[in-house]
């Protein structure tokens, strides 16, 4: 596809959790807990409020359609009254500000003179306050990863939302973890560029060594539009490998919506706002959903026949879009005549329906079944979305589905959902402060340096450069651990141990470092490292693990063992001469079980063999 031809414009937003000691607006740790560790809970309602400008945000209004939802929040020993929205926030965490500004500097941005914390209305329950605190910290940078580079519009420092456990139940441990939101300009011209930029920014953030790692700690949103279409924001692309596919499918969706638009205009289609109560029609239906519904309402989309059922993206039809809108009222979905008879609705019932509603063959009839109140709300949403079809692509926030298609979430939020967080004082960013911020080496540069200067195998260099343990690698090397030992231990050995079921997460950096230093100090053989790590992971101290597994061996002891091994095999030795060295190495190594370095054993064997021969 010629992306230039269709006028593709794409940009991304990257949300990265920061690995600070404390949260952004309270002093709780940025630790996640298991739901089973909750030690309290509470329940609250949320309501949209007017902004300082006197408006209610359209996205918030949409959420309010589901009235009087009561949200439940789980509390932990690591959460406090700030997460509970029961105490004013503490001043912004300076560590997080410093980290966000460091990122900004890495992307050649300009800091704002004074950082103001804003409240961004979010009333889906994921924020106990009903808003997310966010602040714009820097503007207008550029990164060099694609031809011509990509503009970075802004970096915001935000608080992470509460984790949804299920339905309207949230876990407070995640709420308030600092989050850097990096927004690029819509500079990407192909799906592949989107992926490249996302990957580059990810690398850049990890280069700080101070971001969270693991599932859910980084999330990409993609902004896409094509000529004639509209800006659509797709939320929550967690898997980088899908990001180009998401872009491709959105292009497809927008193209199909534009096709439908043109077709509707050609057909002189229209939307009838006449609502039919067809509950009686289905009182003996074979559809379980319709049969149990208290109220079934129908509307006609005149001239829509066949278009509502048209696929616009794999697994998605115009009908799916309408259904998404309808669900905001709490209904389960809708039926439309493009897909009927089906789902237990008979041919005969469809005919009766079309008759009752006076529908022409070119019309599509839509059904919604629920309580009267909800069904009425849903019909309104459906009519609204049907009207939108005449202008093609609506501006929307959408949610990625499993394979890369998307569903509607809410309208694009406007500026009205932002208003000042009055409980937090602004932070002045002085020139001196900005000047003194140190830019960390990029992982890509490290990778090169590890290979070229430290002589690591390029693959290992890359692996260790991108590894979570990379900061430890650099510390270890700076303390005298040989790069190869450090890299193999921290990347390969830990990986293998993990594969074997060892709880490597519980190994502290300090312990791993101590083990590597012991090897360098020849207090343990490098062959003993896996066993030592294994022991320490089970709760041993490093010292006691060394004592048990690799007690320092005196030269005397070693030479005794070597002598014994040679004497037992003296005929073989006499026969083979110095060639016996290789085979005997294995025997002695096994005997010493990693307590002595291979090189030392080899030396001792050589000496002893020389004596004997």
């Amino acid at each position, binding site marked *: 596809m010629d992306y230039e031809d269709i006028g593709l414009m794409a940009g991304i937003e990257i949300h990265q959790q920061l690995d600070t000691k404390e949260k952004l607006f309270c002093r709780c740790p940025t630790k996640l807990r298991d739901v089973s560790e909750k030690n309290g809970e*509470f*329940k*609250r*309602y*949320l*309501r*949209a*409020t007017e902004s*300082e*400008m*006197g*408006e209610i945000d359209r996205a*918030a209004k949409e959420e309010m359609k589901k009235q*009087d939802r*009561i949200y439940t929040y789980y509390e932990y020993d690591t959460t406090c*009254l700030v997460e*509970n*929205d*029961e*105490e*004013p926030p503490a001043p912004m965490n300076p560590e997080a500000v410093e980290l966000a500004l460091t990122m900004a500097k890495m992307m050649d*941005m*300009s800091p*704002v*003179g*004074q*950082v*103001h914390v*804003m*409240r*961004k*209305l979010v*009333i889906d329950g994921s924020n*106990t*306050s*009903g*808003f997310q605190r*966010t*602040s*714009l910290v*820097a*503007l*207008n940078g550029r990164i060099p990863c694609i031809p011509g580079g990509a503009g970075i519009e*802004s970096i*915001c420092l935000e608080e992470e939302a509460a984790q949804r456990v299920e339905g309207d139940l949230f876990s407070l441990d995640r709420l308030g973890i600092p989050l850097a939101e990096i927004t690029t300009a819509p500079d990407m011209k192909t799906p592949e560029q989107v992926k490249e930029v996302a990957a580059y920014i990810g690398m850049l953030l990890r280069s700080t060594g101070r971001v969270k790692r693991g599932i859910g700690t980084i999330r990409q949103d993609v902004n896409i539009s094509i000529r004639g279409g509209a800006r659509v924001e797709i939320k929550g692309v967690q898997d980088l490998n899908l990001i180009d596919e998401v872009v491709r499918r959105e292009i497809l969706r927008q193209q199909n919506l534009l096709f439908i638009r043109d077709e509707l205009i050609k057909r002189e289609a229209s939307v009838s706002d006449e609502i039919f109560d067809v509950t009686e029609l289905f009182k003996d239906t074979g559809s379980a959903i319709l049969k149990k519904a208290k109220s079934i309402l129908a509307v006609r989309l005149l001239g829509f026949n066949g278009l509502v059922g048209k696929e616009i993206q794999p697994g998605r039809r115009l009908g799916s879009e309408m259904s998404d809108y309808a669900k905001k009222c709490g209904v389960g979905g809708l039926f439309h005549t493009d897909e009927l008879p089906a789902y237990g609705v008979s041919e005969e019932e469809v005919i009766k329906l079309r008759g009752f509603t006076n529908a022409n063959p070119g019309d599509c009839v839509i059904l919604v079944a629920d309580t009267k109140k909800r069904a009425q709300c849903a019909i309104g949403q459906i009519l609204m979305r049907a009207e939108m079809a005449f202008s093609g692509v609506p501006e929307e926030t959408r949610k990625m589905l499993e394979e890369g298609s998307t569903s509607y979430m809410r309208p694009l939020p*406007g*500026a*009205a*959902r*932002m*208003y*000042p967080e*009055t409980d937090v*004082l*602004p932070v*002045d960013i002085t020139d001196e402060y900005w000047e003194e911020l140190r830019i960390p080496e990029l992982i890509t540069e490290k990778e090169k340096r590890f290979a070229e200067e430290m002589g690591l195998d390029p693959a290992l260099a890359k692996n260790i450069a991108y590894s979570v343990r990379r900061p430890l690698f650099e510390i270890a090397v700076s303390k005298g651990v040989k790069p190869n030992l450090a890299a193999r231990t921290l990347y390969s050995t830990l990986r293998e141990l993990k594969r074997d079921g060892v709880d490597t997460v519980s190994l502290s950096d300090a312990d791993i470092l101590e083990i590597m230093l012991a090897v360098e100090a020849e207090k343990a053989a490098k062959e003993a490292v896996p066993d030592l790590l294994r022991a320490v992971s089970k709760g041993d101290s490093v010292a006691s693990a060394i004592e048990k597994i690799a007690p320092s061996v005196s030269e005397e002891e070693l030479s005794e063992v070597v002598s014994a091994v040679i004497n037992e095999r003296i005929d073989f030795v006499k026969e083979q001469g110095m060639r016996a060295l290789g085979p005997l190495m294995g025997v002695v190594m096994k005997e010493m079980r990693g307590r002595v370095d291979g090189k030392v054993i080899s030396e001792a064997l050589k000496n002893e063999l020389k004596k004997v021969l």
Partner: protein
Amino acid sequence: METGERVLCKYAGTQLKGTYITERNGKAVIKLDSGYNIGVLHSTLEVIPKEKPAAPSPKKIEQNEKLPKLSIISTGGTIASKIDYRTGAVTSQFEADDILRAIPGLKDIAHFNAHVPATILSENMTPAIWKTLARTIFDEINSGTEGIIVTHGTDTMAYSAAAVSFMVQTPVPIIFAGSQRSADRPSSDNVMNGMCSAAAALSDLGEVAVVMHATTNDDYCAVHRGTRVRKMHTSRRDAFKSMNIKPLGIVDYPSLDVKLEDSVVRRGENKAALFDNLEENVGLLYFYPGMKPEVISAFSGYKGLVIAGTGLGHTSSACIGAVRDLTKAGTVVVMTSQCLNGRVCDRVYDTGRDLLDAGIIEGEDMLPEVAFVKLMWVLGQEKDTEKVKALMKTDLRGETGRCTPHGL
């Protein structure tokens, strides 16, 4: 530049459109069209002429005249707070009518008459404003309202509720309500507190009460007697607690069912009467170990002083002389306890007996703050010292009980 003016900010190589908000620490605060506020140097700004948007004019609230009549009397407070652009902090500048906008459900349960005798942060409450407030309430009662909601900042709400308890004898509920989390957030407690207050104001109660969240959940409000309530947390929704008695009742949310204890004063039990005289020259003093007697003597010339003593109602022996000097000079000194719960009893220990001898009045089981307000009021009604003493020990508005209930 004026708040609301459209500006172009040339900064960091871009041109950003926005709206000028205010100045803060030498920087210009602008709201970008993205919604974010940032602080920038004034020199980066250019005014865009003629683009200043009209402030949206809020629609007039339509009320249903067929519903029962309630009065909302606003004194300020976060139940009706708005942002102060000068400091960026929240201040109380709404008019009472705005409460109906902030709590849309209200207009479905009553027809409201609104008065705004004051718009203050409640820490600035004074006896003078209490008088105005009491008169406003009294006039509303006489005009035939079914009940009164006083919106009030939470800081001194308990003091004001006590003051109104003494100043206004009422046949209808007088409900104080506020919010601990300001009205400008979706999670604000103002909606539930406001709705529950209205339900309480329409109930069978005939007392002055504070109606606020009973728990951290949005599940029900407690109805606290105005002379027995205290703010017991700086920031939690359920900060208000009844002290030394059980709450008068609860209001369930969202059902708004009101359940009252058998012992409450009922609607219509009392006739409306106003006693708005207060002796303002009254102090409240918190005793602490090592307190110098001069701290007590600083109140000489006062008509009354309430001491929050330790335990059963003590000061150090070293302070008793200063107390005696005060009482001799005509200051009425009432002893309460900083324990807040339980009853003062100065007959048990030496120091207490010596204090009684020095002329103090035992404040029974009254909260220090309530004793302070009551003393202002009693001294405003009665000059004879013996009668003042007797009144201080007599239960007038449920502020003290003959027995201390178990199990609170």
